[in-house]
């Protein structure tokens, strides 16, 4: 065997040995990627007779139309009953505008906080073993298990005038209940699970091999997170964020308890809808409701896009 000089970089220029060695490999045909075959078309079901099939489809569509589609159409129909002008006037009414603004502010507080918390919690749960892990998982699920009204009442019990911290807070002139802080707390409480729940299974399935590989290659903890962890969970994060946002904007029970229903101040959009409806101001109520319905439609579209993206990435 001829001697080969060691390149300063640690590699030799002489490739002949390796090239010769690789010849049988190529001949074996294994350079062709097995993961490259296009997905086969799903075969048509042949078992069910056409009549049964049509009946099943028809009943599914009818059910969906009755339960989901009709109410959605009704919302817009009612909102525009007195014409577009009246619709716009109802929305530009000061109290309605205040409700829209408050809802947006609450979403802007709750979503980023839950994004940060969700990533941190999911990372800890998926990649490390520690004492109290199952307790943390249960705590994250708690808001799903507890009725939102109870969640609101907990905060009233803690921060309300008769509550534990109430006297101290009012002595210092801090208002939590019937004000923005209370609404924010209630919104955060009900939206805690969305991001973390989305990320935990994703991160668990990805394991920590890639992070370890990055660390061995000299990446810092932050670089590892930025360049490896974050890109891998990107779409899960977007998905969790839109679901979290939809809930933050649409939440009724928890915020209703802590709101106090002060017009133009502590009424979110869902609360505003209720008040208008109770005052028999149906058109205005449905006008505000139509904005929430629109939000739902946008959420669905974004969700579909993200799901398509995720499939594309995993099929790539």
């Amino acid at each position, binding site marked *: *065997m001829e001697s*080969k000089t*060691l390149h300063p*970089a*640690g*590699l*030799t220029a*002489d*490739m002949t*040995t*390796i*090239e010769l*060695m*690789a010849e*049988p*490999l190529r001949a*074996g045909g*294994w*350079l*062709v*990627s*097995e*993961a*490259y075959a296009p997905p086969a078309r799903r075969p048509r079901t042949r078992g069910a007779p056409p009549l049964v099939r049509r009946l099943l489809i028809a009943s599914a569509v009818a059910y969906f139309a009755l339960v989901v589609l009709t109410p959605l159409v009704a919302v817009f129909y009612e909102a525009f009953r007195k014409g577009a002008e009246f619709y716009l006037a109802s929305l530009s009414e000061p109290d309605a505008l205040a409700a829209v603004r408050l809802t947006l502010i609450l979403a802007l507080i709750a979503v980023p906080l839950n994004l940060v918390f969700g990533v941190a919690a999911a990372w800890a749960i998926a990649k490390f073993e520690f004492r109290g892990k199952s307790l943390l998982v249960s705590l994250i699920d708690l808001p799903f298990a507890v009725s939102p009204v109870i969640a609101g009442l907990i905060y009233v019990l803690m921060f309300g005038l008769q509550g534990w911290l109430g006297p101290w807070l009012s002595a210092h002139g801090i208002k939590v209940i019937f004000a923005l802080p209370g609404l924010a707390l209630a919104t955060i409480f009900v939206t805690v699970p969305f991001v973390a729940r989305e990320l935990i299974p994703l991160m668990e399935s990805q394991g920590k*091999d*890639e992070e*370890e*590989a*990055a*660390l*061995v*290659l*000299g*990446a*810092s903890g932050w*670089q590892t997170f930025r*360049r*490896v962890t974050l*890109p*891998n969970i990107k779409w899960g994060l977007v998905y969790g964020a839109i679901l979290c946002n939809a809930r933050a904007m649409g939440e009724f029970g928890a915020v209703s308890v802590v709101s106090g229903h002060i017009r133009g101040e502590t009424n979110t959009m869902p609360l505003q809808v209720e008040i208008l409806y109770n005052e028999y101001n149906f058109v205005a109520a449905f006008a505000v409701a139509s904005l929430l319905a629109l939000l739902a439609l946008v959420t669905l579209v974004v969700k579909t896009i993200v799901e398509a993206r995720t499939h594309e*990435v995993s099929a*790539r």
Partner: protein
Amino acid sequence: MSIAIDKITRRFGAHAAVDAVDLEVGSGELVALLGPSGSGKTTLLRIVAGLEHADSGRILLHGSDMTDVPVGERNVGFVFQHYALFRHLTVFENIAFGLRVRPRRNRPADAGIKRRVEELLLLVQLANYGERYPNQLSGGQRQRVALARALAVDPRVLLLDEPFGALDAQVRKELRVWLRALHHDVRVTSVFVTHDQDEALEIADRVVVMNQGRIEQVATPAELLAAPATPFVRQFLEGARSLAPA
């Protein structure tokens, strides 16, 4: 000595996964850690890399004590059993990763990174695969990308955890020969973990047979076959000899 392992012990609860192991690996050597599953060979390899800590003992790389040096500063190359390629990056960017995350002052310029990556792509026979993503590659190709990525940072030692474990029999046989040739060219001190006797005997300069966290014997493949030091070694190698191709 390239790698010196000095009385390394690692316990999981009451069970010693690695039990006071001493081992020295010379410059440019290719050493196999061979043993059944649960013998502590992967744990030992991860301790050398800095991915696991040791409860006691020291790790020296090229004479300097690395025991308390974090993984990223040890300058070792590590090839994972399941490749651990960055799935969202192309083959090119996977290999470039170790260079790109360097602090600015000793990061090569883009042109330098490109040259280095192309050199490595050539070395691992994947010159035209730079723009592919990991899941567009076969297992053997992924393994070679993982190897190129580990070599990109000019590691002082190369550590491979069951490098062929996830490949089918035909491919692993071919890749074995190829790795042996690559090591002959690159000459970086290498340690690989395997539970496959044939693999260890065929590729390694020296074989370290491990059992229950301890070293049973360290010897060249020929010595090992001629004079197994313990009943365990003889028994463990018996399977290999009967299966070995004539």
